[in-house]
């Protein structure tokens, strides 16, 4: 059995970038060190799922900012809603929100597809920011950092 090539030691995979966003955000003001997010796909075209998968990659290395993905809404501080909900996903979305422990925030990302129920009409509680269209992983990270109140 060969050893895995230890590329990460010889080559820095995380890009030295600054993340900034002009999107209006209400910081959670709850957490100084870290926060956990749970994402729910409510019927997007799958592009947002891929962008969030890209956020897991070493290029962004989001753990250095104290951002973690939770496996359950009950363990999360922030719920990220991907897309506008299809009629069938409205109920699971509301149930997920009921499972969030107080206090919590919600980040809405509409997606490129203009289908589904308008998220604004659902009057979801504790919405801290809304992103229109299909943002890139960098743009999403910038908003997450703004929500967490981190400036580094």
């Amino acid at each position, binding site marked *: 059995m060969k050893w*895995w*090539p230890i590329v990460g030691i010889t080559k820095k995979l995380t890009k030295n970038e600054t993340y900034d966003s002009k999107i209006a955000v209400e910081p959670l003001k709850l957490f100084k060190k870290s926060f956990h997010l749970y994402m729910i796909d409510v*019927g997007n075209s*799958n592009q*947002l799922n891929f962008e969030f*998968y890209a956020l897991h990659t070493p*290029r962004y290395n989001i753990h250095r900012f104290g951002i973690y993905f939770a*496996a359950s809404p009950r363990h999360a501080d922030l719920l990220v809603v991907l897309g506008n909900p299809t009629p*069938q*996903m409205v109920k699971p979305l509301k149930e997920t929100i009921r499972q969030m422990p107080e206090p919590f925030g919600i980040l809405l990302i509409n997606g490129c597809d203009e289908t589904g129920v308008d998220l604004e009409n659902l009057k979801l509680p504790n919405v801290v920011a809304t992103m229109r269209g299909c943002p890139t992983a960098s743009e999403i990270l910038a908003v997450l950092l703004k929500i967490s109140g981190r400036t580094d």
Partner: protein
Amino acid sequence: MKKLLGVYHTNSDSEESLMIQEDGKIHIEFGNSKLFKNSTLIHERDKVIRDPLGDDNDVTGEGVFDFRYGPVTAGVGKAGVYHLFTYGERILRVKIDPSYNRREVDKRMEGKSIEESLNLAQNICGNFCVSHSLAFSRAVEEALEIEVSNHVKILRAVALELERMYNHMYVISRLAAAAAQLVLTSHLQGLFEDLLVVNEKFSGSRFLRNFIDISGVKFIPTIDVLKDVSENVQKISTNFSKLFEQSLASRNYIDRLHSTAVLDAKSAQEIGLTGPSLRACNVLEDLRKGEEVYSSLRIVTDEEGDSLSRMEVRAHEIIESAKFIVESVQKLEIEDRNVNEFLPSNDGRGEGLGACESPSGSVVYHVDIEGGKVKKLYVSTPSLFGFAAITHSMCENNIFTDFPFAVESYGVNFADAAR
């Protein structure tokens, strides 16, 4: 062997317009869809997907449990539900409900102008947006008898191969993650992100959105950009080859994939499966075979039909796609940069069939255009047949922990299946 991919029009039981794939080509023929074993799957594609080759009944009895997996669970973070009928850890039957992601994008395309419909086509599935927009464009071009220049054909093929590369990288990284191969996963995720960056350089979009246009492309990269793309793709392919070779030496990884969710060639074709999952069953079937721009492409197959074969086919396809992109960029450097401009008109009419080999199989569009608008449309997506193949291949000698390896290896998603 003929594979039924869709039923475009029904007059009576014996007079249906059938979308057929045979020997790497798509055509329409008249006949009776009930003669195909996947007829019910296609006619009821907006309902729950069941094994087209098994019986319709749910499994019941002492100790049998319907484990409902999704839409809001840690393992299935997407808008769809898997019903796993389990007895202990054994999976007895699988039903899949993609209707939670039904957005009726295809229905909304009807009555819209060609440009609006092209934009909607890429919303069917964001990670197959080149495939959907290309298949739709080809259908419109056939309907309106529009010629496409060789330069455009090559550029479109490069975009399609870039889409294949990042999708395959995603699938293989997901399989590595499912097997808790954390170092491998991290490296593959890094290459996945690198490919998205290459896409952005090539087209201005990380997912190659808005690149394909009717009769052409919306964005022509400069020679310098093409050279940069070619160099980066070559580098990614070389790095991936090393990782792939290393991964095959890890028994912990390979044992999870070997003999998992096995599918034989006959069943795969009866289900209507296409793409790398079919080629993993040793069927040399690929829509790219008949295209002149792909004359130098090696079509990859494998023999076992299990999750390992599907992963290996995808891995070799990443390397082949990279070679193809490098060769194509060399051709584009000397090719005339000739692009026909599409001029929308209100009197265009005709019927057309368009298809392309997406990363997970055949995407096929049939359009009926009248007065410059889409009057009627039928789209066949590969994920529908991929999910059906999951329901069939999971029911023999598979246990609960095999589930992620089965699902990820088919490279399917609810957005594509539900449209």
